[in-house]
């Protein structure tokens, strides 16, 4: 007898969509998210391409829907520790990490954070802004419950004393719960490559060389700079910006050989946004092959070129040099289409960095007993005929944890629905 | 450090023929730092780039022959020249790695009654100074600290880059800076520091070769340094002799003294330069010597 319930691991857009489709299909769904809030990577983005929707604005309703859905149990700040059984009858051990804040009492007022004396680099802003040691990852977080970051907490107890709801409980213990589900959806997403090994680009050495995710946070109204693009070195608004594509992607030596397949698109989008933010700015995109495939993308790239005057240069620059006084950057590159070697002075360089597996993906795969490819992404045994199936019946994958087999947000959403369909097939009629 | 480190001294052909200053300084300094040097009998040229390019197997055999001599002495090789180092090191690693190449080369070496076994390693003088001697010991041996001396360094590509490729490890271009600072001098950064001196194009496209060194010298001038030190005899010639050529052909005058690092080290250790050493420098180093002694 099939247990008509499911576990979804990962609360990004893929996990959210899969949960909603399953729940609406009448399947009791447990959504387990490792971090304090669902939302995932999409919540970090400013605008989405090519419609230019505000990312969080179209995501938030879905997050709330998950939170409110009577068929969905939201288990945030929790991790899957053990999985046993087979399709139709899995037993899953989940550990709820202590938030040191009682979810049922916290009203999310933020008074605690106002009083907390500890400031920590904010991972949600990919290290650019700061948050307190008791924090809400971002304003639209779901659930709206604060979390104490014990690694940085001084145990001063200020938060406890100022909390009118008496929600803070610094003695909270981890809780383990056991779930019985019929199927499992893995949607753990991706990490972003840190281009430290590509020394000639000076990331980490030159302040004004940043990654594309850091730029997204800067562009975002709720980001560390309140939607203004600023040079980390002096806060000046850059006039000339250069995007470098394929940093860590299509790279046999320092990164990953595959194409991350979203970088060209978001680079074009960000370039247009920068031109809109500051019309007198010059934006260059250094690409190898401009991969703006998919619905509406080529057309958008043409507009970026014609209407917004974004400059496209087919080249992968050799090196970046920093002027020690002004912190301006000089790119040395060959324009491969005119075959001339040139140098270009810019205020800000944005590295379109590769997407890579979650640091703990191998670990999770082991818990689930499924294979990963040589990078650590989930790999469907038959990636053509059965693109979301893992080699264990009843365990399916969707979103970027399937690696470069996935593309952008629509791909993830489709895979999520497809994954939901696979489980429905199994749970409703036992067809494996 | 181990008190009786010994190395087979591989001079190559450029140094003993043109740069006695480097050889003499090395022969004085290394023992003083507790590094024994033993001369190698009957070594030939290492088979540098020009040759490597023309006949791959020939290059392997040529370098292997020199390695065999060190194997007989059962001593690791210390090479003074970046090209020698690069050439010997790459061949040593290739032959240790690829069996059937090794057999092919040994077959050729039979005409010289030699056989490559792969029992020794190849090091550059700078490696010996950093690994075996160590910066601390060098500091302790400095009797005449070079305080206030602004020194630019030219490491030379083949000391750094092949190592990164073949051994996967290796010091970056900062290796000489560390050593120079150990002598109390100031290591000055300058544009195009990591760029080639242009030496390899000598005799193939002199004009290009010159414009490269010219470019670097201009950068050195901008950084206004007292002198530039090198770890490679080719970079040395390119800068030292090069300044004369550039002066006459491009009408650019720089007058930047060029020294082998080991020379600078010897001064810091209170040793006086000998006659030939001074005469050899086409750009006079008197200024530096006076400053230091």
């Amino acid at each position, binding site marked *: 007898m099939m247990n008509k319930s499911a576990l979804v691991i990962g609360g990004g857009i893929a996990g959210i969509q899969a949960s909603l489709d399953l729940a609406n299909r009448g399947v009791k769904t447990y959504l387990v998210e490792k971090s304090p809030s669902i939302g995932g990577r999409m919540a970090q983005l400013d605008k989405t391409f090519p419609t230019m929707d505000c990312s969080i604005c179209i995501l938030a309703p879905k997050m709330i829907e998950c939170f409110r859905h009577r068929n969905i149990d939201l288990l945030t700040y929790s991790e899957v520790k053990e999985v046993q059984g087979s399709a139709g009858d899995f037993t899953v051990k989940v550990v709820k990490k202590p938030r040191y804040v009682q979810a049922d009492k916290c009203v999310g007022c933020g008074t605690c954070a106002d009083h907390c004396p500890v400031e920590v680099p904010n991972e949600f802003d990919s290290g650019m802004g700061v948050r307190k040691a008791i924090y809400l990852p971002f304003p639209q977080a779901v659930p709206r419950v604060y979390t104490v970051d014990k690694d940085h907490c001084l145990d001063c107890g200020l938060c406890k004393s100022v909390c009118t709801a008496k929600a803070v409980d610094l003695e909270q213990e981890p809780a383990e719960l056991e779930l019985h589900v019929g199927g499992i959806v893995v949607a753990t997403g991706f990490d972003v490559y840190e281009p430290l090994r590509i020394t000639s680009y000076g990331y980490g050495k030159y302040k004004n060389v940043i990654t594309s995710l850091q730029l997204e946070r800067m562009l975002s109204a709720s980001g560390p700079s309140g939607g203004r693009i600023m040079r980390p070195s002096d806060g000046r608004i850059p006039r000339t910006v250069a995007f470098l594509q394929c940093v860590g992607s299509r790279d046999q030596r320092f990164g990953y050989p595959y194409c991350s397949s979203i970088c060209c698109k978001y680079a074009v989008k960000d370039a247009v946004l920068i031109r809109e933010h500051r019309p007198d700015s010059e934006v260059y995109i250094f690409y190898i092959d401009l991969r703006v495939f998919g619905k509406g993308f080529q057309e958008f790239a043409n507009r970026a070129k014609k209407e917004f005057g974004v400059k496209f240069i087919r080249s992968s620059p*050799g090196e970046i040099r920093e002027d020690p006084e002004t912190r301006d950057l000089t790119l040395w*590159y060959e324009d491969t289409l005119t*075959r001339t070697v040139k140098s270009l002075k810019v205020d800000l360089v944005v590295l379109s960095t590769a997407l890579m597996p979650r640091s703990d993906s191998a670990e999770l795969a082991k818990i689930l007993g499924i294979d990963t490819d040589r990078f650590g992404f989930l790999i469907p045994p038959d990636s053509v005929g059965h693109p979301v199936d893992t080699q264990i019946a009843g365990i399916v994958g969707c979103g970027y944890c399937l690696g470069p087999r996935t593309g952008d947000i629509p791909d993830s959403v489709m895979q999520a629905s497809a994954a939901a369909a696979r489980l429905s097939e199994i749970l409703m009629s036992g067809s494996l | 450090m181990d008190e009786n480190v010994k190395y087979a001294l591989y001079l190559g052909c450029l140094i003993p023929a*043109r740069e006695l200053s480097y050889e003499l300084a090395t022969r004085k300094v290394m023992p003083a730092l507790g590094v024994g040097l033993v*001369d190698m009998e009957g070594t030939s040229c290492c088979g540098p780039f020009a040759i490597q390019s*023309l006949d791959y197997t020939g290059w392997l055999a040529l370098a292997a022959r020199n390695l065999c001599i060190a194997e007989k002495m059962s001593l690791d090789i210390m090479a003074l020249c970046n090209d020698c180092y690069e050439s010997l090191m790459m061949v040593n690693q290739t032959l240790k790695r690829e069996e059937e190449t090794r057999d092919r080369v040994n077959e050729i070496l039979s005409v010289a009654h030699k056989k490559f076994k792969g029992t020794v390693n190849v090091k550059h003088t700078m490696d010996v100074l950093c690994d075996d001697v160590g910066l601390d010991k060098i500091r302790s041996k400095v009797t005449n600290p070079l305080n206030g001396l602004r020194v630019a360094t030219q490491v030379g590509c083949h000391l750094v880059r092949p190592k990164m490729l073949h051994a996967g490890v290796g010091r970056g271009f900062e290796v000489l800076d560390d050593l120079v600072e150990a002598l109390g001098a100031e290591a000055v950064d300058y544009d195009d520091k990591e760029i080639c001196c242009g030496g390899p194009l000598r005799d193939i496209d002199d004009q290009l070769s010159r414009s490269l060194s010219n470019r670097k010298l201009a950068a050195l001038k901008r950084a206004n340094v007292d002198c530039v030190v090198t770890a490679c005899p080719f970079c040395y010639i390119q800068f030292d002799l090069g300044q004369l050529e550039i002066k006459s052909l491009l009408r650019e005058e720089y007058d930047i003294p060029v020294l082998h690092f080991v020379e600078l080290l010897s001064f810091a250790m209170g040793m006086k330069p000998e006659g030939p050493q001074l005469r050899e420098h086409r750009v006079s180093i008197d200024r530096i010597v006076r400053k230091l002694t």
Partner: protein
Amino acid sequence: MTSSETDLQFILSQIHARARDPGFMHEVANTVRGEGVLSCIQCGRCAGSCPVGRLTVKYNPRRLVEMVNLGFKWEALFELSWLCLSCFTCIDRCPQGADVGEVVFALRSIAARDGNIPKGALAMAKSLVETGRIVNPTTSVTKQRASLGLPPCETVPEVAKIARKTGFSKILGLQ
């Protein structure tokens, strides 16, 4: 850096199609150190790094590979490959491990095999085979060495034997 007048002339000279050897890519790819030509995706990181490329458009490592793959043997062998410094910067930075710096060695060895060696390189090579050294001390230096008690630089006949055996002598046109 903008193209100088001579460079412009050079570009124009390239625009006319020349006789090509369609098998050249294959030949280079199967020569020692030449495999790189098949890994290249023409991203241009090497050209953006090459010290020579910054001074002249006569040498462009990326374009060199493209010319090889198109089969333009003549350009590849005669004009381009000898301008490489072998400073290995391109190898250091190539994201594909295409190692143009290595490919150059393959090209030169092919050129040498066909007896095309620039004067400078040829002189060095001959001196090496005949004396075992590329640079030989002048008589005054020899004296000086003796007076300073430095070991003499004797010639090494074994090198000639080896060179004969590998066929290097023949390449150099020595008996």
